[in-house]
């Protein structure tokens, strides 16, 4: 029910929205909760476990009851707090966790079964038969209990991530936060002011108070207006600071466009911020605590502060007959505000004795409590217990206040524990819990407006001092300084269920039962009862639950201790945290210069690290990849093939000490390599295992070009930087990654020189350009580098040009190759070609192989030290029982080999302990006419000729294989030299 002339909503801007398909009218500035209350709609949700009808409890982000789903289809968002969702024209809101409807929820039968659904019920009730848990009990329980559901469809909404930097982050825009921001901003500091609410001002917008002679909300608006004009201030409304991290880092969620129907092309719904702040001020306010009494979850029962907020901020009377129940002076303030707005106050029930309330024109009961409530979907009456007995009074709304809990959560995110403050019967932040954070106002237990303003100034002054700035002198605005008089009241004894955690349906008796079953620690009680484990993380209820636990275990609250607060302070959508990480945003794509040409030729692409490389180039009648692959292998073996090998890492090494570096990082010598020559090199880790292999060319006396495998390029670069910076900073050597600067192509096959000689300005022959030569050449007016190296075992070259010429050169090379009855080849053919030669890849050097395992122990030079040499000499790494690299051919009826299969001696049972080795790579060799493979086999080099059993347990394939040398084609290597 809207009250004329009250509230900060814009009465000139009516806004309509729907709830469960029914139209509701509100005004700009309303939340879903305020607009529904204005329309007299109390029922907003069903509870998690018992499906109890629920109305709104609070007016802020701590709301446990009024969870709704907004939007439709894949863009729908579950578990939106109605208290936080601003209404806009066309907003569609749905209730959740109710079937068939919110009004008639058949799952409410759970409420009748509640005696069986208490704390730990699923640990006790559904134990037998054992297998029923997975297929019967759990699915049923999960369907019955719960919150909103995801649509299951992909969400097209845009989310963003962003970084921000400031001198001072002020968290909370109530009186303390506004005052702190103002003082810091006027002193010239870069300030970010983050407030959860759309409207800055905090409780100043919700209370009937004056600051500096103006209504509180007007004073707040004035401060915000001044801050908005300052270049050194960034105002971030609708932004919840959700986490505190090391080194002054904060996470924050900004609900950028959740309040708008039209969002603009690509505009984000939410933005997840990481804020780096030199100093911070926490001014997050306090949360009012309910009182536990029987049926205290009835729709219409809400916190007193929420009742005042709806009254003052939104001009809404939450009921026609409002009873007020409390253990502190806020009860009286609430009753006065209601009466002043013309709302009937049924009674004030104050649990304290002897409290005076002068001039009240409503009944005030002292030393009394509310002990029960009636009315299922709407509150109808409350039962009051006094010294004289119990009686009912009619009320459709109850405003309750059990006092306030400082919102100190963020001070605990770095491991700090709060301190129990007996004067206010609440936890307060422990000083110094977060380095550089100053705590001000209600979140520090200072509850009067005057106190908050003063604390804001003091916090800002402390932050400015740390920043090396001086505050300008400023008069503190005049404000209310009422004392906070409270006598603790956590729960009202009596029959029936009294709710603590509304969101997870945890009652006083559940906590008492946990204590009775010896779950006495706060952390155990929490997990046994699920107290505080719902999305609201027990913001309303944790302290009261601790109080009940403390009482049940005969300890004090301070001694009982708290559970741990962790980020996020409020729920954050994964879509916001992972913004930019959907689809292709998940990983960067690295494309070669021949990418477009490969796609145009119909090549399917395969990922190699972040790179995309062509698998094969299908032609005409070919029906499967094997036919294409076999043909491409044939190009290289018979005519000429062209393959883009630009993805190999290329590291340019220059400086007088380049040779020293290479001698240290490679097992073999590079200082003896002649200019104009290339050498194969093997690199170990310091623990003696193989890190990577590749070729390295000496382009000049002090200039080398190293290539790495595609996958290890980053690791090798980092390793070289480590050696040059951390082990030998005295060396004069400089490293540059040039992988992306050069496009490089393999030209391989008997006709490779013929192809190149049609292009090079200076033709080459075997004398001018023998095997393992390198040099500068020119083609088409472009400087190129040519290397005579071979991964395929054929007469082959790699030619490299600046990347901007890569696409043109690839087209040219492929056209020339096709004219010579060859063509492009892809990764499948490349793999077969290297398998036929027994060349290793990271399938073999997988981090567990030594130089000896791969048959390269002689590459570890005796004449010098190298990284990994000492440790490679450990006996265990020289053990002949280690797996040694061998070749495999099928010799039985089954001709298929698979990678990852185990090898067993003929007749041995195919069990793990009998395994003699395993296969690493396999492929079909058109030259051999069968599958071939590489494997590591114990003492493998002495076992050539032995027939073993290959068993792939996963794919259920068995084959007889013969162990052989790991070179299948041209074992003498004459072709590459010819």
């Amino acid at each position, binding site marked *: 029910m809207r009250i004329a002339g009250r509230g900060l909503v814009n009465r000139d801007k009516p806004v309509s929205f729907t709830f469960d398909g029914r139209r509701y009218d509100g005004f700009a500035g309303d939340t879903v909760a305020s607009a529904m209350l204005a329309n007299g709609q109390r029922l907003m949700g069903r509870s998690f476990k018992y499906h109890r009808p629920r109305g709104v409890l609070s007016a802020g982000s701590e709301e446990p009851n009024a969870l709704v789903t907004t939007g439709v289809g894949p863009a729908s968002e579950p578990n939106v707090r109605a208290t936080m969702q601003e209404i806009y024209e066309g907003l569609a809101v749905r209730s959740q966790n109710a079937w068939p409807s919110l009004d008639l929820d058949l799952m409410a039968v759970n409420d009748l079964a509640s005696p069986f659904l208490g704390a730990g019920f699923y640990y006790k009730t559904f134990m037998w038969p054992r297998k029923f848990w997975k297929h019967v009990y759990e699915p049923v329980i999960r369907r019955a209990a719960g919150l909103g559901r995801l649509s299951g469809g992909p969400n097209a909404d845009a989310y963003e991530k962003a970084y921000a930097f400031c001198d001072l982050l002020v968290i909370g825009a109530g009186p303390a936060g506004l005052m702190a921001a103002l003082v810091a901003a006027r002193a010239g500091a870069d300030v970010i002011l983050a407030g959860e609410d759309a409207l800055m001002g905090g409780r100043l917008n919700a209370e009937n108070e004056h600051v500096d002679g103006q209504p509180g909300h007007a004073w707040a608006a004035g401060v915000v207006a001044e801050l908005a004009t300052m270049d050194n201030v960034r105002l971030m409304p609708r932004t919840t600071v959700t986490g505190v991290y090391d080194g002054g880092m904060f996470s924050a969620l900004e609900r950028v466009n959740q309040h708008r129907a039209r969002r603009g092309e690509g505009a984000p719904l939410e933005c997840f911020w*990481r804020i780096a702040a030199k100093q911070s001020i926490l001014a997050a306010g306090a949360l009012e605590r309910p009182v536990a009494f029987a049926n205290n979850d009835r729709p219409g029962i809400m916190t007193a502060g929420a009742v005042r907020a709806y009254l003052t901020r939104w001009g809404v009377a939450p009921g026609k007959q409002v009873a007020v129940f409390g253990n502190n002076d806020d009860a009286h303030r609430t009753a006065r505000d209601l009466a002043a707005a013309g709302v009937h106050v049924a009674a004030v029930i104050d649990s304290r004795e002897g409290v005076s309330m002068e001039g009240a024109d409503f009944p005030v009961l002292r030393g009394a409590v509310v002990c029960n409530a009636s009315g299922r979907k709407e509150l109808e009456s409350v039962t009051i217990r006094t010294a004289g007995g119990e009686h009912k009074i009619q009320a459709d709304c109850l405003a309750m206040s059990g006092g306030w809990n400082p919102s100190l959560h963020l001070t605990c995110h770095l491991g700090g524990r709060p301190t129990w403050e007996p004067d206010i019967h609440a936890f307060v932040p422990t000083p110094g819990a977060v380095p550089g954070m100053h705590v001000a106002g209600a979140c520090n237990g200072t509850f009067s407006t005057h106190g908050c303003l003063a604390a804001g100034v003091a916090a800002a002054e402390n932050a400015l001092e740390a920043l090396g700035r001086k505050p300008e002198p400023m008069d503190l605005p005049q404000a209310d300084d009422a004392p906070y008089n409270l006598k603790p009241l956590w729960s009202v004894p009596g029959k029936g269920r009294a709710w603590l955690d509304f969101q997870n349906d945890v009652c006083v008796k559940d906590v008492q039962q946990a204590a009775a079953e010896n779950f006495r620690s706060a952390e155990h009680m929490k997990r046994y009862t699920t107290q505080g484990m719902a999305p609201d993380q027990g913001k309303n209820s944790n302290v009261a639950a601790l109080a009940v636990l403390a009482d049940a275990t005969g300890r004090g609250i301070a001694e009982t201790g708290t559970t741990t607060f962790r980020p996020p302070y409020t729920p954050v959508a994964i879509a916001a945290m992972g913004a930019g990480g959907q689809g292709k945003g998940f990983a960067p794509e690295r494309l070669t210069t021949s990418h477009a040409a490969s796609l145009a030729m119909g090549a399917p692409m395969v990922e190699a690290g972040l790179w995309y490389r062509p698998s094969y180039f299908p032609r005409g009648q070919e029906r499967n990849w094997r036919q294409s692959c076999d043909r491409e292998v044939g190009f290289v073996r018979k005519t000429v093939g062209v393959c883009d090998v630009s993805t190999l890492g290329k590291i340019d090494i220059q400086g007088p000490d380049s040779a020293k570096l290479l001698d240290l990082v490679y097992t073999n010598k590079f200082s003896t390599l002649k200019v104009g020559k290339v050498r194969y090199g093997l690199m170990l880790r310091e623990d003696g295992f193989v890190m990577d292999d590749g070729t390295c060319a000496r382009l000049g006396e002090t200039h080398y070009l190293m290539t790495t495998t595609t996958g290890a390029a980053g690791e090798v670069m980092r390793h070289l930087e480590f050696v040059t910076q951390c082990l030998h*900073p005295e060396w004069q050597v400089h490293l540059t990654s040039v992988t992306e600067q050069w496009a490089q192509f393999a030209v391989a096959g008997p006709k490779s020189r013929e192809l190149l000689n049609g292009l090079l300005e200076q033709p080459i022959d075997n004398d001018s350009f023998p095997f393992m030569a390198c040099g500068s050449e020119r083609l088409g007016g472009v400087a190129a580098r040519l290397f005579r190296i071979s991964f395929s075992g054929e007469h082959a070259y790699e030619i490299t040009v600046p990347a901007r010429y890569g696409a043109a050169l690839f087209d040219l090379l492929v056209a020339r190759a096709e004219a010579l009855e060859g063509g492009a080849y892809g990764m499948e053919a490349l793999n077969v070609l290297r398998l036929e030669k027994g060349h290793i890849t990271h399938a073999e050097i997988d981090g567990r192989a030594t130089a000896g395992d791969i048959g390269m122990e002689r590459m570890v030079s005796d004449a010098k030290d190298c990284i990994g040499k000492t440790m490679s000499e450990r006996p265990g790494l020289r053990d002949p029982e280690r797996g040694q690299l061998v070749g495999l051919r099928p010799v039985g009826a089954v001709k298929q080999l698979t990678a990852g299969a185990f090898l067993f001696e003929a007749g041995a049972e195919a069990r793990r302990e009998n395994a003699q080795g395993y296969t690493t790579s396999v492929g079909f060799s058109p030259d051999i006419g069968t599958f071939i493979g590489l494997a590591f086999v114990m003492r493998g080099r002495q076992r050539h000729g032995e027939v073993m059993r290959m068993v792939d347990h996963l794919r259920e394939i068995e084959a007889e294989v013969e162990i052989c040398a790991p070179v299948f084609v041209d074992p003498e290597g004459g072709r590459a030299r010819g």
Partner: protein
Amino acid sequence: MRIECPICGSRDRREFYYRGDAIALARPAPDAGDDVWDAYLHLRDNPAGETRDLWQHEGGCGAWLVVTRDTVTHAVHAVELASDVKRAMA
């Protein structure tokens, strides 16, 4: 967490690659013996308090850094260029 790179300034930890204990700077001689090599490669203290680690500003200038920090408070006390530290060891 932020690290003050001596070359680039204060940067988010996501720009850095973490390697481990700064003992890696003190590579033993080839003939130092098994125990010394074992200690260099494998044996690590796990202090509650000050620790010195090697990080590389891989997403920035590429400099290897020795970061002195506290494993209890997570405070970063000092960041030095590893090359400077290594030169000083000589």
